[in-house]
């Protein structure tokens, strides 16, 4: 059995986002990192691998800079890496999903872990869409997964709390933040990872014709600046603020 984890490289959460000529200026991003929820997916994918569920492949689709993220994943224990080289920034959900579904098939994976939402798109579309394309059961909002006989047991968030669910493969888990420590690579891991070869392909190599995007992006803009607020010293100002909330803001 092969387990796949989908990792996306995004601007670090601390990075400033600048807009130039109607698009987010990728060139000005100071630091790129693995999307936060994907790190939880990676941690549980490693745990599944260690409990004997199978080999683990890390898959990304992105520009050449994303390779570094795969090497980082190898340093903590990923067996192999697939990099589909493409610029995803103007792709719609359908295009990116068709590439990733083909990549998963290419690796022969029947268990897929990913993040619930990427920190750049903020969408949460990819996991469920890919599950549908590869005919896998989809479990979202996952914070824990383990092997359970021939299948898997997962903890997922629900509107009323949490649910323990079981699924058989093929299946996909989209991860929320989990209550686990993330592992950091050690020196040996980093050395080993440098020797590992990343398989690099194009969407065409996977037999995918992504066609035209069905969504036309008009513009990216910086969020509107908020007018400076009013600041008050000391707890004595609480009645004033409450009065303003009622009279100026009309929210209470």
């Amino acid at each position, binding site marked *: 059995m092969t387990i796949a984890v989908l990792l996306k490289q995004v601007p670090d*959460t*601390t990075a400033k*986002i600048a*807009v130039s000529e109607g698009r*987010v200026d990728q060139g000005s991003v100071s630091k790129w990192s693995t999307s936060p*929820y994907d790190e939880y997916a990676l941690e549980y994918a490693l745990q599944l691998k260690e409990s004997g569920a199978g080999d683990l492949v890390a898959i990304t689709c992105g520009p050449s800079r994303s390779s570094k993220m795969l090497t980082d994943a190898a340093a903590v224990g990923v067996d192999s890496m697939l990099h589909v080289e493409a610029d995803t920034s103007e792709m*719609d*959900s*359908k295009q990116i*999903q068709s590439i990733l579904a083909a990549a998963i098939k290419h690796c022969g994976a029947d268990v897929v872990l990913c993040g*619930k939402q990427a*920190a*750049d798109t*903020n*969408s*949460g*579309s990819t996991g*469920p*869409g890919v*599950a*549908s394309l590869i005919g896998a*059961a*989809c*479990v*979202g*909002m996952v914070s824990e997964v383990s092997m359970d006989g021939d299948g898997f*047991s997962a903890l997922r*968030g*629900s509107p*009323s*709390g949490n*649910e323990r*669910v*079981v*699924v058989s493969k093929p299946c996909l888990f*989209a991860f*929320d*933040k989990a*209550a686990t420590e993330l592992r950091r690579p050690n020196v040996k891991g980093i050395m080993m990872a440098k020797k590992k070869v990343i398989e690099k392909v194009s969407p065409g190599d996977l037999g995918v014709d992504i066609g035209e995007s*069905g*969504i*036309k992006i*008009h*513009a990216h803009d*910086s*969020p509107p600046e*908020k007018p400076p*607020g*009013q*600041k*008050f010293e000391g*707890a004595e*100002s*609480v*009645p004033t*603020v*409450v009065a303003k*909330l009622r009279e100026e803001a009309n*929210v*209470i």
Partner: protein
Amino acid sequence: MNITIIAETSGNQLHSVTSQLAGAAGSLGGTITLLCPGGVGESEASKISGVSKVVSLKGDCFSSFDSGAWSAAMTPHCEGVVIASSSPTGRELASQIASKLGVPVVQDLTEIGQDLKMTRSIYSGKAIETSTASGSCVITLRQNSFESAGSDGNAELITVDSTSEVSVAVKEAMAKAGERLDVSEADIIISGGRGMGDPANFSHLNEVADVIGAAVGASRAAVDSWDEIPHSMQVGQTGKTVNPSLYIAVGISGAIQHLAGMRSSKYIVAINKDPDAPIFGVADYGIVATWEEALPSLKEELAKL
């Protein structure tokens, strides 16, 4: 134009956001069909103004959430632009329906304009994207961003028996600890951070919340430091994105990842003892004080209203 709305449900009832979805659909103009998974809220749904037809989908497959099974049962009834809520389940269903229809999905819109011009925030609120679709698409809408439709409708109600193969089996359901309102549901939120000093001090936030019917949230530092504060309360980049009318941040410094989850709140109040805390940069009303001094007075003033 045909519009299909996926009703958002909450237990055995229609969730209030459903009426907002209908309000938004109404602004686009067109014939609106509303799908009720599991038949939940069908009679209430048929009274939402502007809805022409309610399709009540009955079947065992709706007894627990399985986006694969639900979307398989719903997709044949989806025509034209499909609209769902951007709740976690709404997004999951929307993506699966889009994939089954072979169309793109655009999530968490905060505005829709003429010719389906879509506005959404990206990069955790650090940028705004506007786009249009060249053909059909599925969209999800952010809660509390659109006006609700009225309730003087009289839609035709059609019941359909659906079967679909369920592959996610629920073994155990664990209810949330406590009965408090969820931050993603609330119109007023009061959140505490590491500055609260001790999880027991959240009781002071609860007391204020009870006076104004608010939900209580938390920063990641509070959630990570204290077991008593569950992740379900976390607001921010790796927690919940909220946009209430009023957000009160207490003992929260205002790290960029926290702002990512709450900066679109209509009004923000910050209580922090450090006059230079970055949270004051986004606050409409900032109070430089300790929570020990400010909260008792806040509770008292709010109780007077």
